[in-house]
């Protein structure tokens, strides 16, 4: 079913919208959640919450891209769950934290970041990247694809993926540090 039609069903408050969205994007959403949470059971629950989120938010929201919108919802829900689970000390996430650890440490020591508008900064950072780097960065840190998966998906070598990510992380760090220092 076309996205526009699914969105139309949401607007018409037709519950068929939920099953249609699940059928079309359920697997993608489940994968994102599973990569964040490392647990199929938790990911399933997140998927249900995400579908409910779609139902509650559309309308009034009218997303330009239903898939991207749904991905953001399940990502947010999964991180919420991740934080709660960490509080209970029962979760070992699969998200690539190690790669960003150094960046995070430097950022934490480098300025006042609570004042940084991260979404503006992120968009600005991504806009400065070349398309290929941007896609690789998002596949890794938004969708949490593994490096070999990215290489296979995009038809590029693993070493190239690593290089692109490495450079993107450096730029990301520079950008955040600069913005933080400017605050």
């Amino acid at each position, binding site marked *: 079913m076309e996205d526009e039609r699914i969105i139309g069903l949401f607007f018409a408050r037709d519950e068929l919208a939920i099953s249609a969205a699940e059928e079309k994007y359920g697997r993608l959403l489940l994968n994102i959640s599973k990569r964040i949470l490392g647990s199929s059971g938790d990911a399933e629950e997140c998927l249900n919450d995400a579908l409910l989120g779609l139902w509650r938010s559309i309308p009034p929201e009218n997303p330009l891209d239903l898939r991207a919108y749904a991905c953001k919802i399940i990502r947010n829900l999964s991180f919420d769950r991740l934080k709660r689970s960490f509080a209970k000390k029962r979760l070992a996430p699969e998200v690539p934290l190690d790669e960003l650890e150094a960046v995070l440490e430097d950022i934490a020591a480098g300025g006042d970041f609570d004042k940084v508008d991260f979404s503006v900064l992120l968009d600005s950072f991504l806009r400065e990247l070349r398309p290929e780097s941007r896609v690789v960065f998002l596949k890794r840190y938004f969708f949490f694809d593994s490096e070999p998966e990215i290489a296979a998906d995009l038809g590029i*070598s693993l070493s190239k993926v690593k290089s692109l990510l490495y450079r993107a992380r450096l730029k990301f760090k520079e950008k955040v540090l600069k913005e933080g220092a400017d605050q």
Partner: protein
Amino acid sequence: MKNYRYLEEIGKVDEAFLKEVFAFNESAETKRRQKMNKTIIMKLTAVAACAALAVGVGALALSGRQGKITSLPEAQEDSAFTPEISEPADVAESEPADVVEIEPADVVEIEPSYNERIANGETVTVETYIGKRIEHQGFAYTLRDITVSPTFPEGITKADIAATPAVIAYTDSDSEDNMLGFDEKVYDYSEYAAEHGLPPIELEENYGSEYPWQYHSRALDVIDVVDENGLYQGPMDVPDGAYKWIFLEVEIENLSDEEQREYMADMELNGGRWIENPVSLAITPEGEEIRTAHPSFYAYSENICYMSEHTGEELYDGQAEGKKFHNLVFAPRETKTLVLGYCVSDHFVYGDLFLNLHNTEMTYTDSFVYLPLK
């Protein structure tokens, strides 16, 4: 508690960027499917041909028993035996290879006297090239020196060189990196191979069109020759002693210290390594290191890193197992000058002159350079 703030914040990304990711995925998927279609079509064609042949042979056998030759049986035209196969557009209507014709002015001749001197064992400097300036993607390079030597690298024999993946600039026809001021050709390998009767080369799934120039592992004892216009002239047997080495010393004018450090860090990230007593280095699939005296240079090659980390099982495309190679790139540690060494024949130089360096985003260039030596 772990801080997920920044990973979480990435979730605030503009949806337009996510749409771009989806588009990339779909584009890559389309390419994969087209490739698969080609394979299926080839197999189907073979099956159909076999079926038709079997029917034909059967008909002949039958007609022989009946004592006369009949026309081919109806069954041959039956769709069950000769399935109608429609090729996808990219197979049936593929564009001819995008060949960039070079301007005569771009062909830099090496005087015959140089060849004579080189043949006598002398290393000569080719002044004609010096000062050649190339601009690309914000960087400007100037060739500071070119020398040609008959003997480099020390310790590498003709047999080693003959086993080197050889020759030829095949690049993506839509490459953005066709930037060099030298004579240059741009090929699509599949077109090129079909045109010249070369065998198709199976590509590993993970190494797609990104490395088209690496699809070739033809021995150097039969090399492809280009004429003074950079046009393909066919294979040529290279006589003994025809091999020389050429060194290009290139100064990068506007590479900042920071960019230089980044570049070096990238190289190390990719498995390149600093060499304690810097010499040029090549590593064979057997793990053997070939070192040659060339002081003060950092030797790096993406190929080398793969070879050093793995056995011959994980070679790049075209670098067939068991073949030695020496795809050498030399870069000094402190300055902004690169020295690149390439094997040459009497007829041309080949090499991906600037490899990664010219591109700040580390998207590997797929440019090659011919320097015909006339």
